[in-house]
């Protein structure tokens, strides 16, 4: 399927889980497809990076559930900063590890997972819906009950996948993409390269086959689909591009230009063609 075929499956107000971590292996071609659609009022669940920043800047987000929103080499996502400081999105911020337990609880279909993470901190103060539980055993420990995330659709980007939806990561970290896939009602996966099932082990050991087709509902082949975030070993982060993107948060005209140049494009193929032009012009990475 294509990015636009995936977006047809989404609707206003949905809770969308987005895999990756910060500015690392984000399903950016799918995010851009959301941006060129009319989708709005989304609840985005993410270890956020430019996916969150772009969707906030374009006014598509009603609510955010996040462990952080960062561009890694730029510690705070600048468009997310604006969204928070102007109060345009409802923020549900969890400790990074507590966020993992929200995914895990959804995956295991239990209402919550208990943890110490958050006790004593303002994570509880500013998430008044978060409740604590007391251990039913002798120790009587009070713990935070992290509720299962209720995700309608997850979007993840893998290095390789087969047409049936078996996903493979070849970089240093899967992050939580398998949990995003299992936690959501439906999951769509983009990949750098679609390969035959019998070729999945050509580039990585069996340990890299971490998203089974049981949990995917469609695959999009999107070479460069994580750009400008990193997708090792296929490519690193496009830091020059990321800096330009980050600068658009300080300048509405630059943001308008960025939208025209990189977001108001009809397809991922067109985006790639633009990138190739940019590289040819010597202004790129």
């Amino acid at each position: 399927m294509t990015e636009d075929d995936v977006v047809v499956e989404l609707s206003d107000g949905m809770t969308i889980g987005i895999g990756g971590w910060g500015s690392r292996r984000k399903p950016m071609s799918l995010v851009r497809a959301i941006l060129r659609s009319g989708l709005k009022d989304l609840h985005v669940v993410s270890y956020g990076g430019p996916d969150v920043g772009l969707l906030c800047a374009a006014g598509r987000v009603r609510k955010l559930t996040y462990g952080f929103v960062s561009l890694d080499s730029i510690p705070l996502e600048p468009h997310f900063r604006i969204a928070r400081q102007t109060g345009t999105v409802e923020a549900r911020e969890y400790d990074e590890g507590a966020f993992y337990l929200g995914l895990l609880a959804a995956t295991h279909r239990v209402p919550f997972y208990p943890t110490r993470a958050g006790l004593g901190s303002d994570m509880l103060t500013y998430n008044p819906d978060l409740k604590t539980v007391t251990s039913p055993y002798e120790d009587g420990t009070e713990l935070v009950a992290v509720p299962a995330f209720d995700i309608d659709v997850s979007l993840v980007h893998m290095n390789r996948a087969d047409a049936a939806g078996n996903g493979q990561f070849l970089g240093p970290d899967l992050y939580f993409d398998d949990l995003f896939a299992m936690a959501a009602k439906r999951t769509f996966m983009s990949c750098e390269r679609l390969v035959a099932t019998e070729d999945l082990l050509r580039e990585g050991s069996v340990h890299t086959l971490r998203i089974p087709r049981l949990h995917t509902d469609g695959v999009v082949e999107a070479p460069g689909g994580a750009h400008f975030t990193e997708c090792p070993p296929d490519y690193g982060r496009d830091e020059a591009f990321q800096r330009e993107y980050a600068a658009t948060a300080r300048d509405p005209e630059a943001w308008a230009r960025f939208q025209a140049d990189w977001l108001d494009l009809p397809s991922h193929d067109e985006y790639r063609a633009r990138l190739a032009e940019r590289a040819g012009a010597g202004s790129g990475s």
Partner: protein
Amino acid sequence: MSDAGSPAEKADMSDATIDEICLVALAEAFRGDGELLCHPMGPFPVAAGRLARASFEPDLMLTDTIAYAVAGTLALGTTVGDPSGDEGVVVEGYLPFRTVFDQAWSGRRHVVMGASQIDCHGNQNFAAIGDYRRPKAQLLGLRGAPGNVINHTTSYWIPSQARTFAESVDVVSGPGYDRVAELPGPSGRFHEIRRVVTELAAYDFETPDRTMRLRSVHPGVTLDDVLAATPFELVVPGEVPASRLPTGEELHLIRNVIDPTNIRKHEFRS
């Protein structure tokens, strides 16, 4: 001020610069930790962790700051590319983020984090300034601070004390001793703020009411300097020792092995 690239072998301890003194004071936070995951955040704390392991705390486990536990001493700014192929880098373990959380909750971990505000109880904020619900300044966020601080040993590196020490913090990311004391039952039993190191001095919480105590003052800094940069009541012992100077071996490690490109000095530009 000495040139940080000065000859290695018998570096003269007396030419140690303030960044090197701070680095040693921060490394001292790990003394006695033995075999645990030493997980400092940011280049300066990472250098301190690597220094501790390369000298007096050899059983620490350290990462390349990405996903690999590395046995040798990496220079700042180096990460493992291909874990099977990089020359001179010995990978001893795999620590993707999920494993790091599991590891944190297991307790065998000591982190060093930064802070935008910290108070006398050790309440730390790097989440936001102003009203959290619509902050005047959105900072990093809570990040992993709530889970780290309540689950295992934490220290803080604060390169600008006057700007960071605060009577109270706007948002509590990492809870301090007063907050944790209010928790019911044994919920707070793994909480320990080991050390706070600033550009002026080192601090701990080894007081009866667990408020911050001056532990040592860096050479060249006076008690008045420290107090002028502290807006809360600090516990000051009768005799305050000076933070120790780096040994010749430590200076060699800092200047030639761990940070030959002087990344640590960026912390002191202000």
